[in-house]
């Protein structure tokens, strides 16, 4: 395998927009191509993530249309990938493998989602399709419901009073909203208080509104290249040090899902490939679709002991400037979560952090960063480690 590097990244502002899927994708993709000092015609293949286009805009067979939108020729293979919320990270890992293998030199990876016009009821149903549809979705399970059950399971397992755990969870929301104030592309750029989080409407006991990330529109894109090309095109290529991907079945089959085995496997692969461990990570964009999700992810990735992730947040250990900066972008919680784009948006943030381009939210001296993207109730999990 040869070394692969990121040579350009692009991202739209996240949040409700009048742009459609193709327009959103084009904005992020053309930014990434321009930043790479390339033209569309230089792209040899496209891997693009989108989850709900069929339901949202009645558009299947999306990849070809997106390739054509940005001027890729008839000889350029375009592949749509779907892995629920991990979609764009799956696309990235697959694209990485093709370039690492030497089959392509320059590949565009992207992700895009457009859901703001769907309404909460249809969107909740469509999102719930990422759970086991034949048995568990029939129970009326929703994603806030999955993480609500996780919260109760976690409180019971670790003997943490629910009220204390809810405080730790609220602290995640406060931190990520604070980070979002420093990200001009974030959907929410205002502070939130503990009181507001803890007094929000109940969605699924004990998950309240401000424990949840929003429904979002948005797109993100990344250009990757083999080492030789990367060094010719730009000054500061960001190297892909490790990748991992894991799989799981229905939530009940996972039993104690406070520790997601597909994530543990995925992270293990990425660490092994990079030849490093959790202590070497300076900055991490991880999957905080709900506040409790950030806590369990930070434990499973090895940053904190099991049962201690919430305490770490309360102590400021995950703040920018803390032991490990988690979600300096604002995370899914404040930056927004256009599910098909999120993986590429996490990579966008880590690449910018390593290049030192993040302004007020810059993690000083960040040299190694990691992404963590959770698809559905852990059916698909991807981890990527990047370094200078």
């Amino acid at each position, binding site marked *: 395998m040869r070394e692969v590097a990121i040579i350009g990244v692009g991202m739209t502002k996240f949040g409700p927009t009048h742009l459609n899927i193709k327009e959103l994708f084009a904005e992020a993709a053309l930014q990434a191509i321009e930043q790479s000092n390339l033209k569309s015609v230089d792209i040899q293949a496209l891997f693009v993530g989108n989850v709900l286009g069929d339901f949202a805009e009645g558009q299947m067979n999306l990849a070809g249309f997106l390739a054509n939108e940005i001027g890729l020729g008839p000889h350029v293979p375009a592949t749509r990938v779907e892995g629920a919320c991990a979609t764009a990270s799956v696309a990235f890992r697959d694209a990485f493998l093709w370039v690492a293998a030497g089959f392509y030199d320059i590949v565009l990876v992207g992700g895009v989602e457009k859901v703001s016009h769907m309404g909460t009821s249809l969107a909740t149903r469509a999102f719930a399709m990422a759970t086991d549809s034949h048995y568990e979705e029939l129970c*009326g399970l*929703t994603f806030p419901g999955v993480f609500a059950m996780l919260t109760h399971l976690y409180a019971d397992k670790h003997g943490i009073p629910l009220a204390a755990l809810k405080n730790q969870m609220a602290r995640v929301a406060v931190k990520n909203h604070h980070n979002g104030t420093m990200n001009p592309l974030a959907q929410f750029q205002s502070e939130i208080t503990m009181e507001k989080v803890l007094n929000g409407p*109940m969605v*699924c006991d004990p998950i309240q509104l401000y424990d949840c990330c929003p429904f979002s529109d948005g797109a993100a894109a990344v250009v990757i290249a083999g080492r030789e090309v990367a060094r010719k095109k730009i000054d500061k290529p960001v190297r892909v040090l490790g990748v991992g991907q894991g799989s799981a*079945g229905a939530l*009940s089959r996972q039993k104690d899902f406070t520790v997601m085995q597909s994530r543990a496997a995925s992270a293990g692969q990425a660490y092994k490939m990079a030849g490093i461990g959790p202590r070497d990570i300076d900055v991490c964009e991880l999957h905080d679709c709900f506040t409790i999700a950030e806590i369990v992810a930070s434990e499973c990735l090895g940053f904190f002991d099991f049962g201690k992730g919430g305490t770490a947040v309360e102590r400021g250990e995950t703040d920018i400037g803390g032991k490990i900066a988690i979600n300096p972008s604002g995370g899914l919680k404040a930056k927004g979560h256009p599910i098909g784009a999120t993986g590429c948006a996490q990579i966008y943030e880590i690449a910018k952090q390593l290049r030192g381009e993040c302004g007020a939210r810059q993690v000083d001296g960040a040299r190694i960063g990691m992404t963590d993207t959770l698809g559905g109730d852990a059916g698909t999990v991807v981890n990527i480690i990047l370094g200078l």
Partner: protein
Amino acid sequence: MYKLTHNQYFAALKEDNLMGLKCLECGTMTVPPKATCDRCSSTELEVASLAGEGVIRTFTVIRVAPEGLQAPYLVVMVELEEGPWLMGNLEGLEPDQASMDLIGKRVKLGHKVVAQMQYTAGEGVVPLFSLVD
């Protein structure tokens, strides 16, 4: 080839019988059914009946429902006596009465028929648990 299809599993559940697959290699019970053992991936499985009893491991009250469903309702994850965990709904308790005290409570299995909705593969049957005194 497929030892216990979802239609056969649903038909039994409609009679309040919980069917699963017992692994002939490692003894693990797999439920709901699938092509391979949940523990060791063996295809040497035989259809078996479960008691339909267990304890609640976790729960939630869904207050924002997907299209086609009426909130609030309770979703529970039950650890069955035979080992597997199984998701279902809980009846006999007002959703507003649900608290952490539910965890560890014993339940027994009944069923609920879910009519075909848009984007489902026909009628479904889900476990509907109730608390055992």
